[in-house]
């Protein structure tokens, strides 16, 4: 059997998009020069932020660990070059919110010196055991380089009940404009394939499917060559139709295996692990060369730069540097995007750095990005239903989100929306649908937070009330006991009682004596009781 006979499956919806890939593939890949300042946000991945292990002013070597993450879902951070830690503090970071976040800033010394921070290469990597591979991937701070930046070590650690029979390699790169995976496969196919073998040996799947969109014939050719004679029935390069978002993990698993990842599950639940080609190359470098993840391939493209191209970039390099390397902005540049045009986010400033998941920078002119007309009411045409790869009813979700009917939105599976943007792209009314879904999700999350806080507050209040009540009750009981004791001990003044009772009795006796003395002059009768009370306090 040959690779071409592999059965392909379909996922519902998706859209054909103009791919705009040719612009950035004409120039060969070049290495971006070392920047003077590198900004490294502590949270470049899904999960908790890493914690700095260096101090301001400290000198670090290239590849040295500068921040570590000890949570299961997290990734370490390494110095991309040698230099001095200039600052540990908030810096503008590439994030949809446009806010700043804790980062480490390195002033490069220009030496780019590894010192001895390279991890020891694993000699016998052909027989690497799964735990060793996982630990190395974790030590190297590798995350999914396709854009989602999910810590890769987690994906190499399926739970015992998850039998992995298929390894899916994602070379689809379905978003328009982005070509870094394409260029990686064209120029470093051997590295990708070697990385694949490492993962394959660790996970021991029955088969391995490399999905590449059929608009990348050169990448397919290079990968096939790199695979060489090793292409067998169980390792295949599968050209897949170029339909956005076929490179989405769930969509790709569906197209290649026919399996649907459960709504709230992971590919491992259906026996599949999926890695991006860039991630495989990074895994190879970490294992065989001992290099942590400190640089990546970035596409700098769009009609808003003069010379679109792909660059090998030190993590932490400011976007502005890359723009300069791509010939600078055109006069009519309008929008700057990190990621693809469908799911990427607009940057407020080009001072932000390239991060691990930053696969593409698009500088776009107005005509490429602006909605052609005003936003009109939804006419329920259902184009969005046809386009939605998650099988949702976007027009209904829009309606519920707009009306703030969040219960209904969740009933219509709002959280199955992957924000791919297909619905907004086909909407004849120009409605920014995805924005409404993000709004609704955020509102639901914040309501959920508030609800939890309110619940916690209520619980605290309840506990306090209970405690006060208990104290009150205990006090009352103590008093009752004491009064009872006093009543009992007064008439039966025999021995064997405890000293405290004796004291009370003595006091009572004194009081009674005093009372008797005063009886002639005074009529106060409450004294014994009040004295008794005082003593109790």
């Amino acid at each position, binding site marked *: 059997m040959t690779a071409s006979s592999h059965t392909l499956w379909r996922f519902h919806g998706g859209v054909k998009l103009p791919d705009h890939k040719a612009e950035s593939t004409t120039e060969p890949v070049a290495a971006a020069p070392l920047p003077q300042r590198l900004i490294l946000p502590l949270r470049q991945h899904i999960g908790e932020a890493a914690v700095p292990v260096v101090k301001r002013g400290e000198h670090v070597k290239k590849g040295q660990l500068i921040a570590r993450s000890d949570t299961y879902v997290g990734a370490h951070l390494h110095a991309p070059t040698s230099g001095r830690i200039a600052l540990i503090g908030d810096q503008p970071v590439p994030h949809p919110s446009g806010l700043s976040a804790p980062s480490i800033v390195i002033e490069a010394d220009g030496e780019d010196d590894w010192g001895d921070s390279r991890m020891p290469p694993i000699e016998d990597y052909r027989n690497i055991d799964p735990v060793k591979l996982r630990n190395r991937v974790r030590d190297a701070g590798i995350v999914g380089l396709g854009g989602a930046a999910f810590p890769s070590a987690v994906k190499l650690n399926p739970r015992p009940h998850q039998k992995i029979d298929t390894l899916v390699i994602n070379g689809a790169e379905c978003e328009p404009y982005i070509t870094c995976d394409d260029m990686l496969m064209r120029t470093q196919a051997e590295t990708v394939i070697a990385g694949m073998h490492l993962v394959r040996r660790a996970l021991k799947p029955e088969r391995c499917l490399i999905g590449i969109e059929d608009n990348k014939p050169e990448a397919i050719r290079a990968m096939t060559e790199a695979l060489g004679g090793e292409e067998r029935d169980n390792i295949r390069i599968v050209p897949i139709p170029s339909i956005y978002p076929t490179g989405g993990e769930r969509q790709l698993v569906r197209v290649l295996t026919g399996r649907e990842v459960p709504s709230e599950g992971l590919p491992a639940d259906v026996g599949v692990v999926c890695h991006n080609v860039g991630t495989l190359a990074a895994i190879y470098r970490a294992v065989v060369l001992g290099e942590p993840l400190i640089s990546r391939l970035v596409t700098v493209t769009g009609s808003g730069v003069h010379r679109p191209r792909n660059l090998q970039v030190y993590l932490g390099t400011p976007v502005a540097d890359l723009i300069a390397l791509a010939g600078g902005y055109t006069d009519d540049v309008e929008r700057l995007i990190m990621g693809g045009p469908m799911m990427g986010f607009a940057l407020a400033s080009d001072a932000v750095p390239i991060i691990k998941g930053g696969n593409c920078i698009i500088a776009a002119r107005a005509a490429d990005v602006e909605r052609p007309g005003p936003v*009109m009411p939804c*006419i*329920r045409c259902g184009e969005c239903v046809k386009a939605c790869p998650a099988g949702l009813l976007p027009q209904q979700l829009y309606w519920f989100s707009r009306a703030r009917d969040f219960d209904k939105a969740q009933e219509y599976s709002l959280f199955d929306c992957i924000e791919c943007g297909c619905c907004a792209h086909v909407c004849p009314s120009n409605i920014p649908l995805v924005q409404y879904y993000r709004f609704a999700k955020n509102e639901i999350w914040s309501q959920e937070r508030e609800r939890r806080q309110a619940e916690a507050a209520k619980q605290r209040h309840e506990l306090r009330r209970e405690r006060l009540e208990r104290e009150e009750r205990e006090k009352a009981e103590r008093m009752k006991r004491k009064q009872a004791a006093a009543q009992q001990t007064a008439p039966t003044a025999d021995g064997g009682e405890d000293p405290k009772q004796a004291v009370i009795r003595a006091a009572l006796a004194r009081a009674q004596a005093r009372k008797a003395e005063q009886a002639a002059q005074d009529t106060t009768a409450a004294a014994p009781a009040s004295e008794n009370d005082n003593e109790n306090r």
Partner: protein
Amino acid sequence: MRFKTFSSPHMAPARSVNRVMGQVLLALIPGTAAMTWYFGWGVLINVSLAVTVALACEALMLLVRGRTLTPHITDLSAVLAGWLFALAVPPLTPWWVTLVGVGFAMVVAKHLYGGLGYNPFNPAMVGYVVVLISFPREMTLWLSPSVIAELNLSLPQTFAAIFAGTLPDGLTWDMITAATPLDRIQTGVGLAHPISEIQNSPFFGYLGGVGWEWIGLWFLVGGLWLLKRGVIGWQIPVAMLGTLTLLSGLFWLINPETYASPLFHVFSGAAILGAFFIATDPVSASTTPRGRLIFGAGVGALVFVIRTWGGYAEGVAFAVLLMNMMVPLIDHYTQPRVFGKTTAGKEG
């Protein structure tokens, strides 16, 4: 350098409401031309009048509601509503009937419910039903294609008929008007005449009534073009015409002398126009794929029921409005299966 930020996606959409509406209007041209061929200038005058009234009402209501005229006045939805109304009424309908019908359609059925996108009922059909019920005499002034072809009323004469209600000397309304083929069948069957006998008259052609069958075919051409362009989905037309064919075929097989043939049903009256242009109005139709099948099937079944046993000879308008009422219910129970979820995990 600093930039303004926007939410993704960052690719310009390829469609627009104007384009959708514009394509539907283009697709109406062959059928409208055929109607003009068989029924004379009246059709064009009605279309022009209805479109003018629709645009005027749209502008008026936008002003009353404090909205800007653009983009709504140019979205072509008012033009489409007026045009569809004009195709539904007889070719020499008095001008004030059009005024009342289109006015009601735009003011009440469309704008009082919130304007484009918010109307639960098809505005053109609401307007048509209002005049059908209010002015039954005027609404039966359908012309006989064969008579009209001989008379060849000129444009000024047609104007006079529509705006002044006067006919050229020597002509009376009775001479030029004739019951529609659907009317003839209904009346004839009501009088216990066998269908073969009723159809044995110069009013009937190969498929439906003379003239009507060709009009239907040309609307079919426009409708198929819309399907091919992806402007409308296949579900509603296929389900509606399929159900109509199936039901009428079943009864026709039982007794061809009391029940007209499926071909006659499909190529008479407004079945094709309704299937491709009226029931497919996205705003008032069901919006889920399976819901559209149910919606279309419901319209087809109701058309057959009304034509066969109802008080009106044609039932497309009533059928569409009745199914419009069912839309929220249909949509609720026909949600598609969400990726990664089992049908069991979720209703629908």
